[in-house]
């Protein structure tokens, strides 16, 4: 087993965008020649967050909203692992919003793939932080009364060095984004638009299909102002691709003993080393 990526039978609904996201993820990992045991997928709870069960890599399927903290712990403990966070829009931008914001501040080397179906799938159709104002849901029966959150604009404001948007219906393009995000040294956010065939009757496959367009070749992804304009473009037309990408020092690089030393997990433990600390108490 496990020197190739095996796929397990998911419990996702037929036609769910999650299938395409998984296909793209498998292709990205294979094309990057990364072996399954070198990858950890960390997730929260939700339909998207079931990903570690359906592809044979190391997995940490934790709590709803709490995928980023363990991902940080894992990467700090073993810098050799490729750490990928896979979680829903509710998981990431709602319950886990604080970790999302502060995770960006750290700029730790993880790739974050948010399956953004603009709805709470697993809990049957309530509004998520990215559901449009006024949209009727199973809970907001007379329409959503709060403004949606713009994750890409927020990430840019917080200083994220890699901000991208993908679409589950465009696999080759998504594979490219995922590869770039995994290779990127630092925190890489890919917000992936994904239809929910059961609970979101507004943002359907064709709703997205008719709106998304590739950022042109000429687009300069190092220009933050341009990136912000593109992040705010979410209406009749929705740009997909890398909106912003610059090199930045990562969290790991700020710890000399990690940057220059072995992964923490390989450091020998020797209690006697600490004995000298008693001197200051004498």
């Amino acid at each position, binding site marked *: 087993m496990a020197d190739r990526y095996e796929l397990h039978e998911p419990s996702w609904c037929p036609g769910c965008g999650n299938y395409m996201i998984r296909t793209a993820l498998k292709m990205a990992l294979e094309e990057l020649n990364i*072996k399954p045991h070198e990858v950890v997928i960390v997730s929260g709870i939700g339909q998207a967050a079931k990903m570690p069960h359906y592809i*044979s890599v*190391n997995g*940490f399927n934790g709590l709803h909203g709490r995928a980023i903290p363990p991902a940080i712990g*894992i990467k700090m403990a*073993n810098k050799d*692992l490729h750490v990928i966070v896979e979680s829903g829009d509710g998981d990431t931008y709602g319950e886990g919003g604080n970790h999302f914001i502060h995770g960006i501040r750290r700029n730790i080397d993880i790739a974050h793939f948010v399956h953004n179906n603009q709805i709470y799938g697993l809990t049957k159709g309530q509004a998520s932080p990215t559901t449009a104002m006024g949209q009727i849901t199973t809970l907001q029966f007379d329409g959503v009364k709060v403004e949606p959150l713009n994750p890409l604009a927020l990430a840019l404001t917080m200083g994220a060095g890699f901000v991208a948007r993908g679409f589950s219906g465009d696999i080759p393009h998504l594979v490219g984004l995922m590869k770039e995000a995994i290779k990127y040294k630092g925190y890489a956010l890919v917000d992936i638009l994904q239809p929910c065939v059961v609970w979101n009757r507004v943002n359907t496959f064709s709703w997205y299909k008719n709106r998304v367009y590739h950022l042109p070749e000429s687009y300069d992804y190092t220009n933050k102002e341009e990136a912000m304009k593109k992040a705010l473009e979410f209406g009749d037309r929705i740009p997909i691709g890398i909106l912003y990408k610059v090199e930045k020092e990562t969290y790991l690089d700020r710890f000399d003993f*990690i940057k220059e030393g072995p992964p923490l997990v390989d*450091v020998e433990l020797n209690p006697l080393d600490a004995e000298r600390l*008693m001197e200051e108490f004498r």
Partner: protein
Amino acid sequence: MDYSLIVGGEAGQGMDTFASLFEKAIKRCGYNVYAYSDYMSRIRGGHNFFNIRFSKDNILAIKDRIDILFALNEESVGIHKEKVKETGIIIADEKVAKEDNSITHLKLSEIASSLKNKRVENTVGLGAILNYFGVPIHIASQVIREEFKEEIAEVNLRALEEGYKLLDTRYPLQIREDDKILINGNEAVALGAIAAGCKFYCGYPMTPSTGVLNYIARYANEFNIVVDQVEDEVAALNMALGASYAGVRAMTGSSGGGFALMVEALSLAGIIEVPVVLINVQRPGPATGFPTRTEQADLRFMIHAGHGEFPRMVIALRDTEDAFYQTVRAFNIAEKYHIPVLLMSDQHLADGVTTKKPFNFKDIKIERHIESNIKGEFKTYELTESGISPRIIPGKIEGTTVLVDSDEHDEYGHITESAEIRTKMVDKRLRKFELLKEEVQEPWHIGDQEPENLVVCWGSTYGAVKEAVEKLLNEGVSIAALVFGDIWPFPTNKLLNLSRKAKKIIDVEQNAMAQLDSLIREVALLKSDHKILKYDGRPFTTDEVYRRIKEVI
């Protein structure tokens, strides 16, 4: 000989420095020290004080009465005057409470001004008081040289010398060999964690637990430890679990309110079976409560926190030495059983400074129980007789992956809704708890083997109770105390044994609802006859425990 000193004043008046210099100088004379710091939750003003007790004997708590009061302001005189023994003295600068002729006024500020440094006023006082106890000036000078950088050390040394001229020696200490360390509870826990090979500590500042975070942070680079000041305590435990899953020893800590935020992740630790060590340095609640004061009211909370049923271990720390060794032990137990081990301290222990024998690092064993020769498909939750599954580190074995899951899962870690597997997994996790029961340490036993009066207590009340019980033993009272450290699983052997002949069980706790007593009722089916409870946020003095036991026996 057994003396106590209180130095009191406003926050920002330099009491901390005075106290640490005084404690160290006394320790260097070969004496034992026990010091408790009583401070308010503010940065300036208010009233703070240190109560520093010292003796040739092994003292473990503070006393009601004191021998010397060093008042840095008038308010301190009013607050502490009553505690001063008839043989004691009150010392203050001549500008403090001028009219009060019970005070021995000294020219502290005048001398400081003549040295052109207002800030050395306390050092003048230090000199005076150290001479009062006949501490050789070379010992005091050495302590000052260690504490301050060159120039500042110079002016402080002159202040010290001037101070020595102000008071005559009244109670000369006999200088003995000093082979001790002087450490507080937070430092002891942090040192234990470093010795145990903790490589990841994350936390969010919260008094009185911040000292652990601070100490580890200070040595983090030297010992390859990642210290992360997290965005909130929710992140803290989740992050520590990630680090531990990836193979390093990880710990987090907070006080009650922060621990409350960790509760969901504690339950996660239970089901994913990832080892972790956590400390709750208790302060009085509910909610924000008394941020800088002491209480033992989180016992039930620590035992029960977390939804669902899963094994955990709860260990209450009794003194600084215990804090060190139990922290080391916590890591070994967490990694043996793949469970969360919860340490409980409190402000009294955390900030209390004690002299102890240097800790023994040579005998520390690090037991990790990690397998490396597993091939192919790996069952994270393999059903074994003991309930403990083999553990491997993700990424270390080619062709093998590790899946942990907060959903109920099968042996591979995959989500399941099977009734049969669910039952097996619950049983598996709880089998570890049964095994853990064999691991628990019986409480410390002080006093008679067949006592008429049996005192029960836990954690940091140890010192005050031990001294009180020993005093009663000396008076011929038939008495013993059991001081619980391991609290969950709850050890009952000694308790059942000693209670057999006891006519009275007396429960001593720093809370209002007698939580240990309720635990004893539940697990040992015994109930205490008397409860000595204190929940005013101040630690028991040994005199108070003595008095209140005496009232009921």
